[in-house]
Structure formats: C-alpha cells, structure tokens
C-alpha cells in the first residue's frame, strides 16, 4: 500500500520540532504500550521508520508480537490518521539477507542507520533533544492499513 503525499509530508518534517507520533505496540498477551516518538521517516512510500534510540518496552513487545500502530500526535492539523501493520526492529548485526515484508534490513540501515547524519540533533529543540544519541537501528512498519482516529469517524478505513 502506498502512502499519499499528504501522509508522507505529515510524517517527515525535518527540523523545527519535526513530527511527533505515537507508536503503540503490545505484548503477546495484549498489554499495550504507547510511546511518543520524534525521529520519524517514510521509506519507499509504504514503510514508516522510527529511530530506535531508547526503546525498552516497545522493543520487548515487538520481539514477541511484531505489529504496531502509529498515530500522528503533532502537528495534527486534521491529519487524524492511524497507520497499522507488521512492525519490527531492524538493527546492525542482523543476517545480511534479513528481510521484513519486502524490505532488506541492509538497504534500510544503509540509508537510516545513522539518523544523526540525516537529521542532526541540533535541529531538535533543546528541551526535547536527547542528551546523547545512541541509535541501535530503526523500528520499521510496513503499512497495511490507514484508518481515521477522528472521534466522529474513528476506525473508518482511509487506505
């Protein structure tokens, strides 16, 4: 499924505070974890990436239940979208041919394995800037569906 240009624009805002999303994952027995994420990008029009800087429970959940939902948190501006699909962690050290839903880990990490090069921390406002960027890899979603989270039509399929 290809994301629309409007969606891609909403997910990739470099500098000026950038886009903020929430990533929801859950354990295999259904305990959810929803966490704000700042370093977001889109890859090949159908995957959403988030830098893995400090993931703990998210990581555990994805290790046992590889699915997630990403919701736009800021700026919303009517873009009340929820993206859902298979989600994993791609990290340096995975076997060279490791593939996740059509994407090669190596290709993704070659481009996004060093996020600071693409989006220097200095572009992030000091009050939300991590003290030290230690990137482990990326959280990586293949978007299978997009639905609305607007209260009046929550759950309505958009794509």
């Amino acid at each position, binding site marked *: 499924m290809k994301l629309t240009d409007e969606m891609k624009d909403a997910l990739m805002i470099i500098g000026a505070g950038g886009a903020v999303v929430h990533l929801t994952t859950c354990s295999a027995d259904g305990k959810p974890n929803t966490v704000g994420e700042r370093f977001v990008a889109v890859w090949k029009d159908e995957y959403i990436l988030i830098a893995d800087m400090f993931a703990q429970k998210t*990581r*555990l959940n994805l290790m*046992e*239940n590889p699915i997630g939902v990403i919701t736009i948190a800021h700026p919303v501006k009517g873009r009340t979208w929820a993206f859902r699909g298979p989600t994993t962690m*791609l990290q340096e*050290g*995975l076997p060279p041919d490791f593939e996740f839903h059509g994407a090669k880990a190596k290709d993704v990490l070659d481009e996004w394995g060093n996020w600071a090069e693409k989006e220097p921390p200095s572009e992030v406002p000091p009050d939300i800037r991590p003290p030290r960027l230690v990137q482990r890899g990326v959280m990586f979603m293949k978007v299978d569906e997009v639905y609305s989270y607007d209260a009046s039509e929550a759950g309505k399929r958009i794509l």
Partner: protein
Amino acid sequence: MTKLTPRMRNWLEGLGAHIGTATKKGFPTTIVVESAKVEGDNIVKFQLSEAQVAQVKQNISENPQVALGPGGLGSIRAAYQFKGVARLESTTLIVEVKEIYCTKPGPEAALRLDTLPYENIVKFESTRWRDTGPPK
C-alpha cells in the same frame, strides 16, 4: 505450547542453570544448579540440596515465577533465557517453561522465541550456533 529444542535440552541438562526466584514483592534470590533433566516438551527438573530448598521454598510458594539462565559456558554459548512457573516436590524443583528468549548480545537480544513456530526456532538456532550442546 512451549517446546524446548534438542539444543536447549542439551545445554540445560549438561550445565544446569542459574535460577532466579523472588518474593511476591520482588526481592530476588538466585541459586545455581549444575545439571538438570528435561522431560516432555517443556518440563525442567532440578535436584536441589536441602540448603537450596530452604533458600527458595518461601519464594516459590508465594511466587512460582522463575527465570533460568544456562550455567557455565552456557551463559554465553547457549544464549537463552527460560521463564516459567516452578513447584517443589521434596527436593526437586520442577519448572514448567512458558517463555523462551534469545539473549545473544546484539540485535536479537530479548527476541522471544516461543511465539515462533517450532520449526522456525530450530532454524533460528541452526543459523546462529554451530554446536548442539556443551563440549563433551
């Protein structure tokens, strides 16, 4: 249903485990047992000394959750962690393994294995490790 692979069995039976127990409020006590017997798909039995029984009896009775890290060289070569529930029958600690994790340092640390199909766990092992158990 969790099922241990032959490699997991071999390491546990050969070198035992460090067994983490805790009170219900989360105060840990670890004991070390140097061998084990695996029965069926997911039952691991440890023969404890009287001193070990005394050490963990209260913990197990109030909180049966335990974690097992393979002993000796298994701590690095057999990078698994097994979690489950335990009960004491006389001096035998019987652990029913419910969860299996990879603890190999790197990107797959904390990967949960028991949620994969059994064939995939075996395949995962065969592409990460060359041995099938501890050295003889």
